[in-house]
């Protein structure tokens, strides 16, 4: 395999930049954001260079590696700090650095009033570095470093305004939920080592034929758990909504476009495991299916624009996860949806940020209304994103989502039916809630009360949004055209290895998909036309209430984990004090009281001392008599 000396720079540049920004402190206030952005842009440049270099090579020579140093080497456990850039990772590199750079640019303006803007850019750079390490690591352990690194960056960014206790709590919640997933990744690595004696992708891939299916299933399930944590999939989804506490660019970059899709990357990267572990694959399908509906349902009831988008993200990643469960062909479509989603969701988030910028950080859509005419460009870009996400041809989302629906249906049988229905239903709901978001925000009556009129955001914010919306329009077709992405990823995921029979002609599927979208849109228009109250209606159906409460995910976690956990802690504190330490203290006090009791024998009377001697003598005689008898 070829080597490249550039890969390290991808990670090192933003990492150093981040370190410099953090260490320099206030001194860097004036230039920190510039440096952060330039660094991010240079990583994008490197990414582009590498991409074209890769494209120019023959297919089997495209992947390049770079060994940096021997990281851990103990006995047979050898892990190099080593990077791998192949067809799959370059997609991510471009997405991360591209979207990342745009968001850097956007943030310059968005965060311009924040005193800590420099710190914000430091975190962003840290995130870029970690995320690149995640997708470039050539072994699970290297990936793990990036994996937790992005978790840390996410934690820092969600809690960026951690003076507000709720935000700090949200950050912590995200980290802990991610850690649950990390347990999965840790265990997956451990099982991998026990199974393969190696934790690098290539090494494991070579050994996969000799591994038992039990082990592979275990690895697969653990990887899925990891993916669930990072990608906010059921049952570890609850943190994502709260994560919207972070500044909006963060929500766009980390909690929509890149980090949360790491789970999809992980499963795709581990395709050789999942392909050999059907049970794990089935679980992937179930998780994906459940989440896509779960997120969609929550999305229908959210009034907070960011939380509605977050629910949508959750749901869209559900699609991707589901796609990865569909076997070799699914991986490519999952990545395709991931890339298109990266564009349109980022664009919409930034759009939402733009709206909030214009609305003095108001996030409640019930307080919006009719913003379209005040913020035309934002409206336009958001609209493009909207069309992309609901899957209107020829926007990006159409191609990617359509392919997933099609593949799901093509599974055939009950499985195909269930998966197909789920994806179609999801598409319908998506259309509904996104339409709802658009109507509540940009159309209808103006509900912002006495506040100043909303105003359009500065160019520095609008240009990134614009570029992203271009992506949301065009990316789908570009990736789809001639199955470009499918062929591109072929060496990594072998999408063409298995030939799928087509149960339904693609065009029928597309028509079905568009039809359900139309249904969803129409219902939403019917429901939300006309005047809307500026407060959420109280008298709503049980379903709405459940959806508003995120389908009781927090209540469940609280009842199932938090409260039992707290009581365990409380009881252990008592046990530790009363029983364990108590036993120790008991030994002390028993000795002391024994001492005090025995002291009484020492009564000061000579006669009783003599008696004690006599008793002792008799005892000796008795003992000897017993021994010799």
């Amino acid at each position, binding site marked *: 395999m070829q080597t490249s000396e550039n890969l390290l720079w991808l990670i090192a540049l933003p990492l150093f930049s981040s370190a410099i920004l953090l260490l320099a402190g206030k001194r860097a206030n004036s230039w920190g954001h510039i440096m952060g952005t330039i660094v991010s842009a240079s990583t994008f440049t490197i990414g582009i260079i590498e991409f074209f270099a890769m494209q120019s090579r023959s297919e089997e020579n495209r992947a390049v590696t770079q060994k940096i140093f021997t990281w851990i080497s103990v006995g047979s456990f050898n892990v190099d700090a080593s990077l791998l850039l192949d067809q799959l990772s370059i997609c991510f590199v471009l997405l991360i650095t591209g979207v990342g750079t745009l968001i850097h640019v956007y943030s310059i303006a968005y965060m311009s009033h924040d005193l800590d803007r420099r710190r914000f850019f430091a975190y962003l750079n840290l995130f870029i570095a970690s995320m690149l390490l995640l997708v470039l690591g050539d072994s699970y352990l290297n990936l793990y470093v990036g994996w937790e690194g992005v978790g840390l960056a996410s934690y820092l960014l969600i809690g960026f305004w951690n003076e507000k206790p709720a935000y700090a709590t949200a950050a912590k919640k995200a980290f802990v939920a991610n850690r649950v997933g990390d347990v999965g990744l840790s265990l997956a690595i451990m099982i991998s080592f026990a199974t393969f004696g190696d934790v690098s992708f290539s090494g494991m891939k070579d050994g996969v034929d000799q591994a038992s299916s039990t082990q592979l299933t275990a690895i697969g399930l653990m990887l899925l758990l990891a993916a669930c944590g990072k990608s906010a999939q059921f049952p570890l989804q609850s943190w994502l909504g709260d994560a919207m506490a972070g500044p909006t660019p963060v929500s766009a970059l980390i909690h929509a476009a890149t980090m949360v899709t790491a789970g999809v990357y992980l499963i795709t990267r581990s395709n050789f495991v999942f392909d050999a572990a059907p049970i794990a694959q089935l679980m992937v399908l179930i998780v994906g299916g459940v989440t896509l509906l779960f997120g969609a349902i929550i999305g229908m009831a959210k009034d907070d624009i960011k939380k509605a988008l977050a629910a949508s993200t959750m749901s869209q990643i559900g699609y991707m996860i589901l796609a990865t469960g569909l076997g070799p062909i699914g991986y490519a479509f999952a990545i395709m949806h991931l890339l298109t989603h990266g564009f349109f969701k980022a664009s919409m988030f930034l759009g939402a940020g733009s709206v909030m910028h214009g609305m003095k950080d108001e996030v409640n859509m019930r307080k919006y209304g009719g913003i379209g005419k005040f913020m035309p460009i934002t409206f336009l870009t958001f609209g493009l994103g909207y069309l992309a996400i609901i899957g209107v041809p020829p926007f990006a989302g159409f191609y990617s989502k359509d392919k997933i629906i099609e593949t799901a249906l093509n599974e055939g049988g009950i499985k195909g039916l269930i998966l197909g229905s789920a994806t179609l239903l999801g598409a319908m709901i998506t259309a509904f809630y996104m339409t709802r978001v658009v109507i509540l925000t940009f159309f209808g009556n103006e509900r912002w009360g006495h506040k100043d009129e909303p105003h359009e955001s500065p160019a520095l914010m609008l240009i990134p949004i614009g570029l992203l919306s271009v992506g949301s329009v065009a990316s789908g077709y570009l990736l789809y055209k001639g199955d470009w992405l499918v062929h591109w990823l072929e060496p990594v995921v072998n999408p063409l290895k298995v030939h799928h029979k087509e149960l339904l002609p693609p065009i029928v599927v597309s028509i079905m998909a568009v039809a359900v979208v139309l249904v969803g849109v129409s219902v939403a228009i019917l429901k939300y036309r006309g005047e809307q109250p500026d407060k959420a209606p109280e008298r709503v159906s049980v379903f709405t209430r459940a959806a508003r409460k995120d389908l009781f995910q927090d209540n469940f976690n609280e009842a199932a984990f938090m409260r039992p956990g707290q009581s365990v802690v409380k009881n252990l504190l008592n046990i530790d004090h009363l029983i364990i330490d108590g036993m120790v203290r008991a030994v*002390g006090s028993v*000795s*002391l009281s*024994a*001492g*005090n009791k*025995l*002291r009484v*024998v*020492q009564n*000061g009377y*000579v006669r*009783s*001392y*003599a008696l*004690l*001697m006599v*008793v*002792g*003598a008799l*005892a*000796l*005689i008795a*003992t*000897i008599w017993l*021994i*010799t008898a």
Partner: protein
Amino acid sequence: MLTAPSLGYLLLSPMIIVFAAAVIGVLVEAFMGKTHRAAVQLTISIGALLLALVQLWRIRDLSSTTAAVNSVTIDKAGIFLQATVVVLALIAVLLIADQENFTAQASAVPGSNEEAVALLQKNQQTEIFPLFLFAVGGMMLFPVATDLITLFVALEVFSLPLYLLAGLSRRRRLLSQEAALKYFLLGAYASAFFLFGAAFLYGYAGTISLVGISSAAGSANEVFLLIGIIFVSIGLLFKISAVPFHSWTPDVYQGAPTPITAFMAACTKVAAFGALLRIFYIGFAEAQTIWQPIITVIAILTMVLGSVVAIAQRDVKRMLAYSSIAHAGFLLSGVVALSKDGLAASLFYLMAYGLTTLAAFGIIGLVRDSTGEVTDLNRWVGLGKKSPLVGSVFAFLLLSFAGIPLTSGFIGKFAIFSAAYQSGNIAIVVSGVLASAIAAFFYIRVIIMIFFTDPVNDSVSVIIPSVKSKISISVATVASLIFGVAPSWLLTSATNFATFIK
């Protein structure tokens, strides 16, 4: 035709010197004026002890079973034990030389005019020196005596002066006299047991010599042997304060004048253990299956009870008394071991323990208020603040008692438990370490009181010791430290000297 019994004067010379000095001391007491009497007495005592020590050095390689017909066996171990007694006595005499601990006139009724006048006129009697020398002589004789009557006589020779010395305190004379009475009555009681047992051993073996008893094994009258062993053991176990014959110890240690307690605690233990070792190693060696289990049980009981009861003590002298009981238990493991290693370990332990004990009681004598010594532990709080040096030294001594490494107590404990383990007595080793853990508690409690508790504002203070006490305490402490850090010399000597001959 009668031939005069031949005596090995050279071999006996250390004892003869001490006894002679004691007799001279009596004469001095009787005929010398009060002005220089104390100094002369002290000189005689020290001189005699030094001379005895020199003699001991000169005869260190000699041995004989017939030094005094067949009654005394001078052998390596005996010489070592005698030397130990003499060295400890030398240190003790410097403490005793601080006359103001002792009543001016023992015969005077406490609180009477007579007493006050004697004090006022500095009419201090100095009978403690001859008494002390007699005791030392007896203690030297006890571990080398090889027949029952000599043992008995030696026992009485060193006990009787001690009974008297215990009653000579200047302050708290009622307590002191009570201690004397208790010590006397119980000691005599124990002697009676010893003698009765001796009679039965004689009945069993037809001879009073230890060797004879040993070689009479298999004689028909096993019962006599058993009774003999039990009763003789009682007498000896009383002297070493083994449970359940220990009750006198705390009371007497507390009541006796502190220098006497120091002397008693250190030297009696050496003498009594010396005799115990000889009797069990020589006389009863053949009957080991009988006594070993019993002594094992007694040893365990002694260490545990001594340690446990010590926890509850409020008086520092009583605490050290219980500590000495616990140490007796540890030392008994050396007896049980019944091996050269056991003997060597015991020899080392006795020296180390004796030095530490002397220094500890020496320090106790320094803590005073206007009415005399303060032994109530609650009033020792914050002593480390008042006198860091004395506090530190005492803490070090306590650590040595507790057997923390780099103290002689630890080496001793290690040696003696190794020997016990070697002989297969693992139970005693385990109980020993557990008892040490309990014991550590009360030693450390005292350290806490001294260092970590703020001093209450009372009149307790540390007096500046006289030169004699200073020498005594510092020699004992330094020796204790050296034998902890570099014990090689003493250990090697103990090993070299660890032989009893028959």
